[in-house]
């Protein structure tokens, strides 16, 4: 249970306060309602590049990190297809430093060309380190444009290609900032050893003077219903053959999200799951395999992915996976369902141990439209029935809703 109180500034900034006096720390989480799905298709990877630029100095503060480190704090950020999220943890008595830093960069950046030049290089190295220079690192670069044809989830957050990052200009940076980095397009959570009234006072003091901007109205093309199976085969310099299979499923704003999430758990969460038991243990066809969901706000993907052992073909793997899918389509036992519900319950409770996680979960729930979702999720999960899981399996785990990627390990020369 995460308690919170909330208020909204005149400029539209939504603020949630979660008091926890057991810790000497405070967490400040600011979620900007912009992700890679909001990018121009010819300028992909920009939301993430922009996140890097947010650390390059703001209107009145030349260096973002140093003053925070000076008061014993640390920070980081991440960008996803849906959001850009910035967070700080610091000793609670130095809370005001976080307000000073975050409000200044919400007001305006320094737009220093050197910062863009360097961060462009850093992001390109990140692109290589995490996506190109790793076995299977490019899987999602290939899968996304195959699974999505219209919706901007069709490119990865890091970007479709390095060229897009190379081409970003300072003018793009400015436009992006003034379009999305607005108090009325942000959600702030302040958590930890803090006092609600004091947070309110500090928020009005530091964020109150920031003018609201023109509200961002998101209009993204919907992904048309998929009508035939898609398959791509790539030969790559990887050690083992691999298989990725995705199925379109409901987004986070749809109650049915929880059904599909539990379905993915039945298929492939943990060592007792159907996929693991059958494919890793019984047939020993796979070195590993799992099932999970992308968890995106708008309709996302249920994913099955694994690596094949030498000597087995993709054809054999496909047949086995199809057999397991048929099995869940015939029904899921109460016992099996209770198992995955218990796993989900456990994950939720464990995710609340860290103060910062509580802050992030609260911010994301608020973005989904109901901050209290963070406390209701457990009920929603418990309410799912075996019939619903079966119906979901029949609806989404069908060939015409599937996108498959086969990696073929290039034979060693």
């Amino acid at each position: 249970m995460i308690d919170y109180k909330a208020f909204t500034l005149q400029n539209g900034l939504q603020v949630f306060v979660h008091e926890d006096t057991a810790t000497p720390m405070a967490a400040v989480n600011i979620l900007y309602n912009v992700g890679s799905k909001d990018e121009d298709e010819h300028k992909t990877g920009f939301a993430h590049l922009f996140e890097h630029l947010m650390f390059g100095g703001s209107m009145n503060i030349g260096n973002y990190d140093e003053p925070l480190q000076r008061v014993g704090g640390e920070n980081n950020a991440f960008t996803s297809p849906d959001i850009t999220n910035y967070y700080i943890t610091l000793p609670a008595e130095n809370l005001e430093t976080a307000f000073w830093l975050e409000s200044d960069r919400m007001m305006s950046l320094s737009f220093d060309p050197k910062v863009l030049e360097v961060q462009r290089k850093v992001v390109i190295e990140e692109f290589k380190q995490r996506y190109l220079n790793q076995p299977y690192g490019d899987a999602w670069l290939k899968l996304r444009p195959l699974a999505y044809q219209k919706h901007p989830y069709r490119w990865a957050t890091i970007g479709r290609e390095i060229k897009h990052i190379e081409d970003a200009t300072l003018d793009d940076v400015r436009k992006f900032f003034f379009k999305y980095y607005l108090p009325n397009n942000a959600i702030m959570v302040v958590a930890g050893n803090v006092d609600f009234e004091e947070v309110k006072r500090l928020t009005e003091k530091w964020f109150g003077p920031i003018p609201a901007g023109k509200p961002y109205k998101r209009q993204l093309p919907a992904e048309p219903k998929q009508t035939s199976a898609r398959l791509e085969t790539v030969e790559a310099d990887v050690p083992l053959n691999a298989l990725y299979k995705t199925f379109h499923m409901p987004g986070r704003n749809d109650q049915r999200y929880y059904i599909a999430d539990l379905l993915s758990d039945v298929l492939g969460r943990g060592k007792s799951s159907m996929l693991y038991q059958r494919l890793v243990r019984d047939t020993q066809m796979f070195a590993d395999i799992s099932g999970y969901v992308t968890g995106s706000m708008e309709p996302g993907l249920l994913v099955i992915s694994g690596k094949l052992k030498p000597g087995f073909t993709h054809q054999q793997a496909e047949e086995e996976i199809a057999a397991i899918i048929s099995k869940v389509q015939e029904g899921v036992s109460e016992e099996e369902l209770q198992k995955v519900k218990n796993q989900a319950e456990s994950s939720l409770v464990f995710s609340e141990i860290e103060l910062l996680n509580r802050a992030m979960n609260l911010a994301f729930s608020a973005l989904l439209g109901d901050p209290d979702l963070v406390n209701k999720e457990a009920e929603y999960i418990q309410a799912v029935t075996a019939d619903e899981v079966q119906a979901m399996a029949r609806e989404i785990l069908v060939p015409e809703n599937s996108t498959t990627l086969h990696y073929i390990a290039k034979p060693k020369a």
Partner: protein
Amino acid sequence: MLDRKSPPPYKKVDSIHLPEVAHLRLKGGMPVHIIDAGKQPVLRLEFIVKNGAVSEKVLGQSFFATKMLTEGAGPYSSKEIANILDAHGAYVEHHPGLDYCTLTLYSLSKHLPSLLPLFRTILTQPTFPEHEFNILKDIKKQQIKVDETKNAVVAAKRFREALYGEHTYGRHLYQEDLDRIALQHVVQFYEDNIRNGFEIMLAGQVDQQVLDLLEEHFGDLPFRDLRGSTTSVTGTGETSRINIEKEGSLQSSIRQGKVLFNVTHPDFHKFTVLNTALGGYFGSRLMKEIREERGYTYGIYSNLIPLKNSGYFLIGTDVIGEHTEDTLNEIKRQIQLLQSETIDPEELETIKNYMVGTFLGSLNTPFALADKYKTVYFNGIDLEFFTDHVRQIYDTSAEDVKRLATDYLDPDTFTTVVVGKV
């Protein structure tokens, strides 16, 4: 008018609340260390033996002995164990380490009564089924194959091998090792080095009922105090440059450093200040120069990695292939600057406050508190270590930083491994 140019006033962290640790011994002698903290109804039970790969006669024994504990026990098959754990939303981790082996259970408190009987069986009656052993071996073989294609993994392995040579601290499992190890070796390791050697590190919401459960299920078990080796390990002392060319690499993985010491060394605390300055945080000199000035990398870090009977200093990064030599030269230059010029008082102040603040933040969860406690317990020192840590960080002078850089970080004593575009 609001002054946005000047930072608000701040306070230095002056007190650190350390974990309170209770100890007890179950009737048969098994030690239990208790960190009762946190608001969530969860528990982490670590079953730890003070023995690891260093006690092996055949490479891989401790790895498989730890992994095999949950592959069959008493009447339970591997699948049944997995089912019981998952059905209670519990999560198990195996940590076969160099010096210690740990089996960790994460569980909601309410499920403990159902899980402890299973754990008693796992710890005392593992059945080591051959079939499961072969599956694990084959899976491990595939994982090694995948790891061998990751430059960063290859670099980290070769680096430790160069530092410690034939000593276990320098050994890794390779595919051919898996062909040598047999089930009897695994069983032997369990009998010699694991059976009845477990201590319990318990963290989370601990009440009398939990303690009663432990007594009920583990109270009658005898305890062997396994101490393992305490001989200091100094490493090969060789300084070498190892290049491993990987065709088609877009980056080079660099690992550089040397054998130093662990938490029991008198210079440990102050050395961590030097390490933070060089590469231990986002504002470090290496991050500023190699990432923020030149954009050669996504990240560069340095660290002092403690082992039970040794410790090593490591600088690691993945950089643009063409800039490998530039990067190595710049690392050297940054170390030389720390040796020749006194660190700026402002920079030192920031580092100290950052270190103490993040240390305070690192005491945030019951599990993190238990991890801190393990550091002192397994090194035979007491909790004073952490108050001392904070005091010594604050006491570190600019001269100390210079002296430590000179004494310990002579670049000519480093071993360097580069994997990728050499």
